[in-house]
């Protein structure tokens, strides 16, 4: 059977060691229904292809100028100017950039193209209890693509994980369930207004989907970014919510950091990253609070 589904890829990250156990390869798909203020993969928000330009790495070789038919790149007085407005997102400039200053996010790839790349590290998966994780953005906005890719991976005996924000239709989730060993599921806030303020959307579908996965006994690892002043007041409520679930394997409290600032600049996006970082004691406190509510490992 020939698979033809495409999806726009941000990155294929090898030796991913925090994405569902063991050594994994994580595929990041482009596009996300959420718009979190603290987003660390801003290239994952829009579905459209995007160019990131890192000015500090530009060596002024002019290769991009020659290859771009749209005139999006110009060099004047030895200075490279990227005119984002003219860019059509073909990505050819990233291929020729000698300084590695241009990154293309959103290359369309088929399941056939991806599969051999994902199988290359099979020995590492097998020796470490790892596998393949689909992430994003939000991978489940491409349910058919994900289902087909995961089905082929399962046929190869590969452990599979889906990293999701949960803000997708039940149908989308149902398509991947048979081929997914574990869901890595984000829980950012319980109060709807807080969730809306942080992510721009309601959390009702998200929590419903999580209850649903739990009800069908699907293994789930909860991920909770801890962002002071945004969702830090939600810890107790998240703990209470999780205590109503029965099949949570592990809970990760992820310390918010602001290392993605350069990425916002390179993408020409407004940097929405909060300034305040969590300190170790409040993280510890958050982990302890959640651990009191649930019967699962909290890290």
């Amino acid at each position: 059977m020939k698979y033809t589904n495409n999806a726009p890829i941000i990155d294929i990250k090898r030796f991913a060691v925090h994405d569902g156990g063991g050594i994994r390869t994580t595929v990041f798909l482009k596009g996300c229904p959420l718009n979190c203020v603290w987003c660390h993969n801003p290239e994952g928000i829009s579905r459209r292809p995007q160019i990131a330009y890192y000015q500090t790495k530009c060596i002024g070789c002019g290769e991009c100028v020659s290859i771009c038919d749209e005139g999006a790149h110009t060099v004047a007085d030895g200075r490279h100017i990227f005119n984002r407005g003219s860019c059509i997102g073909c990505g050819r400039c990233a291929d020729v950039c000698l300084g590695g200053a241009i990154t293309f996010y959103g290359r369309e790839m088929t399941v056939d193209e991806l599969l051999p790349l994902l199988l290359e590290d099979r020995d590492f998966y097998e020796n470490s209890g790892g596998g393949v994780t689909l992430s994003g953005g939000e991978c489940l906005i491409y349910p058919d693509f994900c289902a087909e890719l995961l089905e082929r991976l399962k046929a190869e005996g590969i452990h599979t994980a889906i990293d999701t924000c949960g803000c997708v239709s039940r149908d989308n989730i149902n398509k991947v369930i048979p081929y997914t060993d574990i869901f890595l599921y984000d829980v950012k806030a319980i109060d709807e207004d807080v969730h809306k303020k942080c992510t721009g959307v309601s959390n009702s579908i998200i929590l419903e989907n999580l209850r649903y996965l739990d009800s069908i006994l699907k293994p789930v690892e909860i991920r909770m970014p801890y962002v002071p002043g945004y969702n830090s007041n939600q810890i107790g409520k998240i703990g209470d919510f999780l205590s109503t679930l029965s099949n949570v394997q592990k809970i990760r409290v992820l310390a918010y950091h602001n290392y993605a600032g350069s990425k916002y600049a390179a993408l020409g996006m407004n940097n929405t990253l909060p300034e305040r970082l969590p300190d170790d004691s409040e993280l510890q406190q958050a982990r302890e609070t959640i651990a009191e509510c649930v019967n699962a490992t909290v890290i």
Partner: protein
Amino acid sequence: MIVSDKDRRVIENKYHLTDKEHDPFNRFKYHGYGYDESTGLDDDEIKAGLAALSDSLKGEPHPIIKAKLFEYVLKNTRIDINEHDYFVGIYTWDRVLEPHTVNKWIYEAADKVALVLGDRKRDDLSATGYVWTSLDYHHNVPDWDSIAKLGLVGMLDRLDIAYRGFLEMGELTESREIFYRAARTELCAVISLVERMYEYSLSKSFGKQPIISESLKNLVSGAPQTTLDMLQLMYVYFMTSESTDLFQVRTLGYGLDGTLYPFFKNDIESGRFTKDEIASFIGYFMLQFSAIGNYWGQPLYLGGTNPDGTTRVNELSRLILDVYDELGIYNPKIQIKYSKSTPRDFLDRALKMIIGGTTSIVFCNEETIIKAMMRGGATYEEACMAVVKGCYEYAVRGDSVAISCNVFNALKPVELVFNNGTDPMTEIAVGLETGEVTEFKEFKDFWHAYLAQLDYAVSETLRSITEFEKYAYEVNPSLMLSLTLPACANTLTDAYDCGVRNVSDMWFTGLGTATDAVMAVYELVYETRVTTLDELKKALKCNWIGYEDLRARALSCKHKYGNGDRIADLYAGEIHRFFASRFNGAKNGHGGNIEYELHSARSFIDMGRQTGATPDGRLAGEEFSKNASPTMGMDKKGITALIRSATSLDLSIADSGTCLDCMLHPSSVQGEEGREILYGVLSTYMSLGGASIHFNIFNADTLRDAQRHPEKYQSLQVRVCGWNVLWNNMSRDEQDAYIKRAEAIAE
């Protein structure tokens, strides 16, 4: 506490004063704390005495001269027994025999070799940084079984018995007589030194003195009895062999755990020493090597698998790791033999130390060692029990000697192809005339020219080294080594006189960078056709000045070794196989094996200095890749691609071993989960046919270096709690913040 702070300070000042500058490359030049002057002469007096004695010995056979000089040093050196140390002190360790023996005799040999060969090609190969050949007294291991079971006195008896046997049978040839006299002189000198130390110890009175005196007494009475006796003997043997007999002792025990275990067991069962006391002795022992601080490090290995499949990891192996960890030292360096039988808890213990920042632990794959050694003619049993004789190299236990070490520069043939056989820096026509490079029509012309240059260097090296090796026994009789080896002692034949297998080692430096250089020609000239050989030749001649864009293209070529790129890996494999095929199964002039080793020690820096710019974008004088690793910073696809590339080479055809160096960030290997990850990396590398592997977990210092030299860290990913960022894409402030975080992790 295993070693008290005060004792530790004294031992650390035993070999050089810690508040004075110490150059690890200027080995053996220093003395530490004061020795009792009444116990012997100082260095100058000893040197004067040696000069006079050397004059009076003129005309004697070299082994006799060496032995008499050795005896003089041991008889006259100052000694020490210290309340802060279990181990004795030997004042004279400045390799004082060198000017009267090796350094003199090697030039005489080189002249004779040149006379026979009719040329000085060897000098040209050396002057151009192409091939360095030398006789090898550095990668040898005595027979620790003889030392442990017979002791000094028993080994003397063994020599005497052999001598009487040959005398009675009328087979006492002149060469046997000479070897016997020389080896006996050295062994007796060591025994007399220990006797002198014993007598001196009795004049002392402090807490450790009775234990020290007992160990010294045991050593002059017979075989070692206790763990401390054995450690004391290993130490005395090491010091006298390495610093006076000029023969390096490249591993401590057949596995320090294996050699010490019978003593350990006996001590515990008999109640002679407790486990804590033994841990302390091992701590004091290891601190000696940490304090000596030789730049090459003092290797010792642990574990291994018996021919019947059972592991040799025991209670003592674990204790040694515990002690090493508690001391927090990086020398000696520990090699752990890895196989499927290695207990997981033992591996976990080592992995935990590595994650905690220990960078001196290497894992060696027994399966690859066994394949390599059996290909070279060793039996299965010999291969299972192989000894680690250097950084990663292995050999048959108690039955071999390294005779020559020859280091090849894998990039020089590239330079010579571009210059039709003449080295541009020295203008010496050291290579083959492979034709004007600009006239090469197809890639295969360049490729075949590269192999032809390499082939020529191999042939020329074999021609000169075969002749040179004939003089090994004359240049540096291996007396201290040979007297431990049963085959030498029983036949009264020096190891270099073919008493045991003589092994020539061929090191290959810069395989990764050489592959990148050849692949850059492939890609830039013949695949994408962005340049010509003519332009490339000009660019290399100018060290890329004026060709910066071309250099940027060369640096960003897609076919680079270490990225799981099939084409680059295939060419790397072909160069590797071509080089190996010239040696696998070949014999040297002594009937021993010639072994290929994908290893570079420091030559990747030194040969780099003597090599001009290369097509991969490397500047003149820059370092090469080391061992089986890619060019620093050119592995951009992460550790899994790196391991796939390295194991795509058949590493077992590097008869004598190789190593892959891996860097990981601490955040990848934190906590229990992290240890599983590291184990996953280790076991995958091993199951794919890896050789040795060394992990370097990035710390804040490395990150600071990455900040200063971003070009060398292009693949460094920083990943915190599930979010990933490429290091080089972070702003300075973000990097600073991250470094701060790394500092916190390190604590």
